Every structure is written in C-alpha cells, then in structure tokens.
C-alpha cells in the first residue's frame, strides 16, 4: 500500500473485514479480505459439486460417489475411461476458460470504470471470430488451427484498436468509440464470410462462434492451463496499481502510479486472458461481463475483486455447459447460447433490484 494507507484497516460495519499480513521488515504486506476468501472457497466448492454431477451424466450414467472414487484413482476401468479420458478434460477446460473470462472481465471493468466494460470493447471478440472464421472457411482448419487463428485475429484487432485510439495517451472514452467502430467493421466481415461459405462449414463455424466446449480433450487443456499460469502471476503483480488507478488518473498519478503504462500493461493482460479463453472454447458471451459483477456482490468489497471474479467465471461456465448438454439430447448445443440467456436473465434481476432500492 502507499504512504497514505490509513492506520486502521478498512472497515465496512462494526467488524474489521480484512487482515494485513506483513513480513518482519514491513517491506512486503498483503491485505487479506476474509469475506472475499470465504466467497472464493464457497464458489469453488459449488463448481466442484456441479463438476461431479457433470462428470456423472451423459450417455453412460455414473453415480456421484463413483465419480469421486474414480477421480481419486479407485474407479473401474470403464468409469476410469469415461471420466478421465472423455469428460474430465471438458470440465477442466470449462473451469480454465471461465476463470480466464472472469479475470479478463474484471480487468476491463476496472480499467474502463464501467460495469459494462468487457473484452468486446477492444473488439477482441469480433476479431477472434473473424480469425476463427477465416481458418474454418478458407483453410478448412480444425481445433488447434482455429484456436491459433482466433487468438491471432483477436490480438491483431486489439492492437489495431489500441493504436487507433492512441492520441497523447489512451482515454477510456476514445478507446470505446474506436472499439465500436472496429467491431462494426468486423461484424460486417463475419456476416459476409458466413454467407459466402459452404453450408456445412457455416454450420460448423456457427457452433464455434457461439462458444462451445464440445469434444474438448487433454490436448485443449494444456495450452489453456499454460496460458493462465503465465497471466495470473503478472495480474497479481499489477493488481495493487489497478486498485489505485480506479481512483482516477489524477489521483493515481499523484500517488506515483505511471498511469498510461499501467493501463497498457493491464490492457495487454486482460486481452491475453481473453485470448486464452477464446483459443480453448471460442467466444463465450456474457461471462466476462457478469462474473465480476456477481463476485463484487458476493464479496461486497471495493476494487477489482480479481480472484473472486475468476472463481465465479469458472462456476458460470461449468454450470452453463452442464445445462447446455441437458437442453437437447441429440443436438450438442454450444455453451454460449446458455450463457447468453442466463446473462440476460441476470441483468434483468439486477435491474429490478436496483430499481427497487432506487440505485438507478
């Protein structure tokens, strides 16, 4: 924390809500928000519970007890194959993708100081869709190649938006404007590509465009896990500056935070997190938008709430994927159609509650 850190720990109500852990020399300190940690643990437990259910359901039903037994390595060869080779990689991919999306959304919302900020604002989503579509339609690519194309397209778009929005630094407002323009351009291109494609390819691309975890194997888990392993520590390093940046550019500058550089670093990290998710599952809508907000509601803590947002994102994706597999037996619906509807309903509830308490 800074020299201006209050002597007391932050309070919200009668009891102190956070503990500060310091090294002996007081060089390093870490504030631990008790409620936030509790929330993370509970959300992860809920994710695990849904995961066990998801691992047990499908063509071949396995009881939750047998699922847990198999996960601990004591299953029959049959359950072992079904769970560890077929269903577990999908679940883990879902967890990783959700965590990456939640993290990315929290970073973007903190950066734009706007509860509706999401990776869409830098055009990443549409750019990755364009990249993925080009690979599917022109090269007839599959799995891994689509992922590469998507990430390439997304990153190229984000860089383009960033460069176009740069004039004596980045301002949130101009970034959003340019992002909207570039997104509109890419939306047109995407629709055109879909219309020009052969039908079978268009259908395949549509599933991918909605964000899908169908048929994910261990080969998909590895890059996602590695990506998150790279991004997470870097985010942890930048988190304290991000908190100060939320106070406004002038205040942050006065407190010694290099505003433009920090913003650039955070943007890159947020985009990278989004890229990890898109590479693994395509553009799943709404998770990046909603996970940080749900997390904030649960922890009731100020600031970006990065860890809680990541946990909430994982829970959302795993649950939505479980639901999407149950909606229609024969058609494997993409997880994205569920997150879209659930996201809408959530926003509706939010609106009603805010209206009741007169917040908006």
């Amino acid at each position, binding site marked *: 924390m800074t020299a201006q850190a209050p002597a007391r720990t932050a309070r919200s109500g009668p009891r102190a809500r956070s503990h500060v852990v310091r090294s002996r020399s007081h060089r390093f300190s870490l504030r631990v928000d008790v409620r936030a940690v509790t929330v993370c643990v509970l959300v992860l437990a809920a994710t695990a519970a849904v995961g066990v259910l998801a691992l047990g359901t499908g063509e071949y039903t396995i009881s939750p007890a047998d699922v847990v037994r198999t996960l601990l390595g004591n299953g029959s060869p049959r359950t072992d194959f079904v769970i560890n080779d077929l269903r577990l990689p999908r679940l883990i991919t879902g967890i990783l993708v959700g965590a990456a999306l939640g993290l990315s959304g929290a970073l973007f919302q903190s950066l734009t100081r706007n509860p509706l900020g999401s990776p869409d604002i830098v055009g990443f989503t549409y750019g990755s869709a364009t990249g993925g579509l080009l690979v599917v339609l022109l090269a007839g690519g599959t799995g891994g190649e689509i992922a590469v194309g998507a990430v390439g397209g997304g990153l190229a778009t984000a860089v383009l938006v960033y460069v176009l929005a740069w004039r004596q630094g980045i301002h949130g407002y101009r970034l959003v404007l340019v992002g909207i*323009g570039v997104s509109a351009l890419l939306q*047109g291109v995407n629709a055109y590509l879909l219309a020009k494609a052969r039908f079978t390819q268009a259908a395949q691309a549509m599933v991918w465009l909605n964000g899908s975890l169908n048929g994910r194997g261990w080969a998909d888990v590895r890059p996602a896990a590695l990506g998150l392993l790279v991004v997470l520590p870097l985010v942890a390093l930048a988190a304290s500056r991000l908190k100060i940046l939320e106070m406004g550019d002038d205040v942050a500058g006065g407190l010694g935070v290099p505003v433009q550089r920090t913003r650039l670093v955070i943007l890159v990290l947020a985009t990278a997190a989004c890229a990890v998710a898109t590479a693994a599952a395509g553009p799943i809508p709404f998770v990046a938008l909603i996970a940080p907000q749900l997390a904030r509601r649960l922890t009731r803590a100020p600031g970006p709430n990065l860890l809680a947002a990541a946990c909430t994102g994982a829970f959302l994706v795993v649950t939505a994927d479980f639901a999407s597999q149950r909606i229609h037996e024969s058609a494997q619906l993409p997880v994205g159609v569920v997150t879209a509807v659930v996201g809408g309903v959530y926003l509706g509830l939010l609106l009603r509650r805010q*209206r009741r308490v007169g917040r908006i």
Partner: protein
Amino acid sequence: MATEADAAPLVQTNKTRKQSPRRRNSTRTLAVLGALLLLLTAVMLSLAVGSRALAPSVVVDALLHDDGSTAASVIWDVRVPRTLAGIAAGAALGVAGALIQALTRNPLADPGLLGINAGAATGVVVSLTALGITSLWASVWFAMVGAVVAGLLVYSLASGGRGGATPERLALGGAVVAAVFTGISQTLMLLDAQALDQLRFWSVGSLARADSETLTTITPFVTVGLVLALALVRPLNALALGDDGARALGAHVDRTRFLGLAAMTLLCGAATSAVGPLVFVGLAVPHIARMIAGADQRWTLPLSLLLAPALLLFADVLGRVAVRPDELDAGVVTAVVGAPVFIALVRYRRAVTA
C-alpha cells in the same frame, strides 16, 4: 457504454459555436440542403448504376413515362423498389439511431442496443423454424411482431419504480432483451439447419431482396415512426438536460420516453425486417449529424433522416459495382467503408455528446 461524465472533458465547443446564432442557423440550413442534395445524388445513382448502366437522361425518361422498354422495366421493376426500400430503411435506421442516443443520453448507443433488432431477428427465425414459412417476405410481419415484443419488454423492464425509464435502465433493459433474444434465435438456428442457411444471408444486411411487396409492408410503419420521432424533437432536447431539468422546462419525461421507444420499435422493426440488421448506419449517422449541427435535435434528427438513406444507397451502389459481376451486400459496404470513416472522425474530432 460511456456516460456523459466520461465524455465531459472531451466535449469541445463546436467550431461553429463561435459564430453568431444567426450565422449558426444558416450553417445548419446549408447542411440540411447539402444532405438533401447528397440524397438526391444517391437516388439518381441507385437508379442509373448496376449490371446495366443507364444514362441519367434515360433514367428520367423512363421515370416520366413507362414505355415498356427494357430500360424502363429494369428501372420500374428492380431499381425503383430497391431504391425506395433503401430510402425507407435508411431513414428509419438514421432516425432510430438519433432517438436511442437521445433517450439514453449516450452518444455511442446504436439501435441494436435496445434489443429491438434482436427481437425482429428472433421473429424471423421463429417464422422459419417453428412455423415452416420458407419465404423471407412473409416473415416481415413476424419481424415486426418480434420487434414490438422486444420493445414492450424493454419498456416494462425499464419503467416502473421511481423515476420511470431512466437512460441507465433503458440501456440495461435493452442489454437484457438483446441477450435473451439472441440466445433464443441462435439456439433455434443451431437446431434447424435450413433456418441457419436462410438467415446467414439475411443477417448480412442487403437491399437486394427488397421488392415492392416488402416496401408496401414497411412503409406505413416507417411513416408513423418518423412522424412520431419528429414530433418529439422539443421534449428530446429538454431530456438532454437531465430528468429534473427537463421537468422544470415542462417536458413530459415519461411520456416522451415511451413515445420515443414506440417510434424506435416501429422504425427498427421495419428496417430490420426489410434489409436485415444494419446497425452501423444508426450509430454513425446521428454522430456525424451532431458534428455538423451541434447537439440540437431539431437539426440532428432531420439531418440523420437525410444522411442515413444517402449513406445506405451509396453503399448499395458501391456494392453493385465493386466486385462485378458479383455484388457486395450493402451491410458489408457500410461496415467496411463506414467504420474507417467513423474511426477517423473519432480520432481527429472531439466527441460530441448527445
């Protein structure tokens, strides 16, 4: 989603602001006349240019008396409906964009924001999947129904409670409706291969399929929507001052919002059903209109009404000649040509608040 607060430091007094009020209005009048001229040029091009290029004199001749020649039949059967559809849909999108930006007090809002386009699209999908209707023309009505359902949903979500449908509630309600309808339509499309095959052409946005039947279906909706919107210019100007300020000026805030949303529903529903979801026109044109005329709805709304169809028709003409013998859809051209222009404007001019 930027709010005025974000935009505030970026707002710059328009260059024309330094002029006297009278001079300012003459600039605006010139702008309107210029827009009108632009629209007429676009109409002329739209009638003359195509796979069969016709001289302007031939066009005028054929318009004045339909003598049954090939040129006359090309013009009357194909290009006139297409051009009129472009004018109707363009005007609808431009004015709908100006309305949404005024209602949400957000200069970046586009007609897609309220979910009305998603509602219209869902109507089309439902007609194709559940009801087995195979022609897109019959689905114009379903698109209208979808748009109206979406509009009513947004309003019921956003109104009620204290203060009625505030800009924030409208934006949030719109996001809700857009998300749910998008989810529904995508699900239906993924479950029905035939619908997907039809809709991927529709969703590009094109004037090519607009025939006289489509035109007669949408014209009443567009007309009512436009009249309603133009009748609202004064209260909309008052709304820009915030709800309390508007009430102090004697504007009926809730009524204005309801009527504005109704006009938007009619305009978006009609335009989307006729030419597909061409949202960009509705975002960029009011923005450009404000750059020219400043933030006064009495001028931006008519300017949008003239500029948007001109833009759409130019895009359509360009699409006809760009990749001969093939055609590019107007939706692609507006996106590919319009977006860079918009970005350039954003970069080199300051944003103008709604």
